[in-house]
């Protein structure tokens, strides 16, 4: 076998490792092994590429790889689990940026051979990875800025937004077509800059609550940009890995949109979420009452319950209350109470975020229920503790056709016998929508910082 064949075999093995890794991600027992196998596949692919005869100069490769790799490792080791969405956004942007840079370089290399038109496949793949890679880079960085709260999380809007985005997109496509037919180096840089601008202005108007959808969507974009780079370079592994990521990102985008009952289009163009609070009023206009409960009373109720369900939202993570909530769950289980956590698909700032946060607090994964598993259990549940969640338990999503949340699948906590809501104040959720659950006669409120309230509750349970 020639060296070229050997490299192809190595790529085949790497691709197999990637697929196996994803397959093993289907269960928490094998998931870590899956990630390891994918990492081995990546190592094989990189070694195979380094021995490629076309690679003759190693100095810059080694320097860039060491610098990039160390920064990546350092950040990945240090990052807090609550900051995971930010990190994923940044990594995603880096992949997109790399794809765009490769496209620029390939285009330049083509120009050294001929200044005429590019072949159709080369043209489409170069332009696709340059444009989509740049959009993904800039969009991800803006998403990072919003999640890290360097930028305001609420939608940032300005006049004629859609018109400007549309004009920008059409200009980019026009320039790309021209640059494909006539080689012109600076023109590609202009295309890259405009695509960066488009990525930024497309994500700026998107509200914090829609970030899970946006991150999943940008993930798909980067994957597809990598696949396009594979076409430009005639590299099968890039095509395979890029498409695998594209498929994963697309599936997650669909799942997230469905869980929020919003189409991708309405997320990207809707500027939704983050409105101001309004006081709940009944149909006749009077202010609705809320009933409070003390930690001591709640402790007694919990200890004598048969089944307790905990519904954690992002507010739980903000209050750093994962550990006290796990302590509470452990105490109740010791006393023979059945305890489970019900997790809405969009709890947290990215798909599956809440599960990671609870796993970090040592909550065993067999206590975590998905929405479909949890909903049939609520009618047999004695007490539901809603901690830092709001919109995902709002019955208006099910009952009120006029609510902006209408149609969003919710955790049907109002089916349980008692509901206790842990809340800082009566402010509304990210969607800025009033929640009638708080005024339900079976609901009690426990106001205050979730971490402190839970600590008091744990003490009270120990005292019962």
């Amino acid at each position, binding site marked *: 076998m020639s060296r070229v064949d050997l490299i192809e075999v190595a790529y085949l093995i790497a691709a197999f490792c990637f697929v196996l890794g994803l397959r093993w991600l289907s269960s928490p027992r094998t998931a870590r092994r899956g990630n390891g196998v994918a990492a081995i596949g990546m190592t094989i692919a990189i070694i195979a590429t380094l021995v490629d005869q076309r690679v*003759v100069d190693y100095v810059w490769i080694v320097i*860039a790889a060491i610098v990039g790799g160390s920064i*990546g490792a350092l950040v990945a080791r240090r990052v807090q689990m609550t900051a995971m969405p930010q990190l994923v956004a940044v990594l995603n942007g880096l992949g997109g940026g790399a794809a765009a840079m490769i496209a620029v370089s390939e285009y330049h290399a083509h120009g050294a051979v001929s200044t005429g038109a590019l072949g159709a496949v080369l043209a489409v793949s170069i332009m696709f990875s340059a444009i989509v890679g740049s959009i993904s880079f800039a969009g991800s960085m803006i998403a990072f800025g919003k999640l890290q709260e360097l930028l305001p999380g609420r939608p940032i809007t300005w006049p004629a937004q859609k018109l400007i985005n549309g004009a920008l997109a059409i200009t980019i496509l026009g320039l790309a077509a021209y640059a494909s037919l006539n080689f012109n180096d600076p023109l590609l840089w202009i295309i890259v800059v405009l695509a960066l601008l488009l990525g930024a202005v497309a994500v700026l108007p998107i509200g914090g609550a829609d970030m899970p959808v946006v991150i999943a969507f940008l993930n798909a974009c980067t994957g597809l940009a990598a696949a396009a780079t594979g076409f430009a370079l005639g590299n099968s592994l*890039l095509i395979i890995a*890029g*498409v695998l990521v594209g498929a994963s990102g697309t599936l997650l985008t669909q799942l997230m949109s469905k869980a929020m009952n919003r189409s991708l289009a309405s997320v990207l163009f809707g500027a939704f979420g983050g409105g101001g609070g309004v006081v709940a009023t009944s149909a006749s206009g009077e202010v609705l009452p809320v009933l409070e409960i003390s930690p001591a009373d709640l402790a007694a109720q919990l200890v004598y319950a048969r089944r307790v369900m905990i519904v954690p939202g992002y507010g739980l993570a903000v209050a750093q209350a994962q550990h006290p909530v796990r302590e509470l769950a452990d105490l109740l289980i010791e006393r023979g109470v059945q305890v489970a956590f019900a997790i809405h698909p969009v709890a947290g700032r990215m798909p599956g975020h809440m599960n990671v946060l609870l796993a970090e607090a040592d909550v065993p994964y067999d206590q975590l229920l998905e929405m479909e598993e949890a909903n049939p259990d609520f009618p047999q549940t004695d007490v539901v503790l809603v901690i830092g969640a709001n919109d995902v338990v709002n019955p208006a999503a099910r009952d009120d056709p006029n609510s902006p949340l209408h149609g969003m699948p919710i955790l049907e906590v109002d089916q349980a016998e008692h509901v206790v809501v842990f809340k800082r104040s009566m402010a509304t959720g990210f969607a800025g929508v009033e929640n009638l659950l708080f005024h339900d006669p079976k609901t009690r409120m426990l106001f205050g910082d979730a971490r402190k309230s839970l600590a008091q509750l744990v003490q009270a349970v120990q005292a019962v």
Partner: protein
Amino acid sequence: MSFITEILILMLAAWIGVEVISKVPQMLHTPLMSGTNAMHGVIVVGAILVLGAAAGGVVQTISGIVAVGFGAANVVGGFVVTDRMLQMFRRRPEPPKGDGG
């Protein structure tokens, strides 16, 4: 590699991807995302080919350095953080023993 072969590879990969990924439970969606994130770091392979080429001029060297740096950070960061997350997922604790953190 012919264009048809490439398209064939793309279609097969998309099919396998959808099959495999649709089986990943919601619980593991964050690791799935960071794991696939690490996987698109495979772009570093393309970056190495570009940067290592003999004929490279200034444009290729600069864009290549950026691409390799980005790609390497993407790969290493992605796999490391995914591993960190996945090691936290465990079943019900073994009966009373130690504090568990």
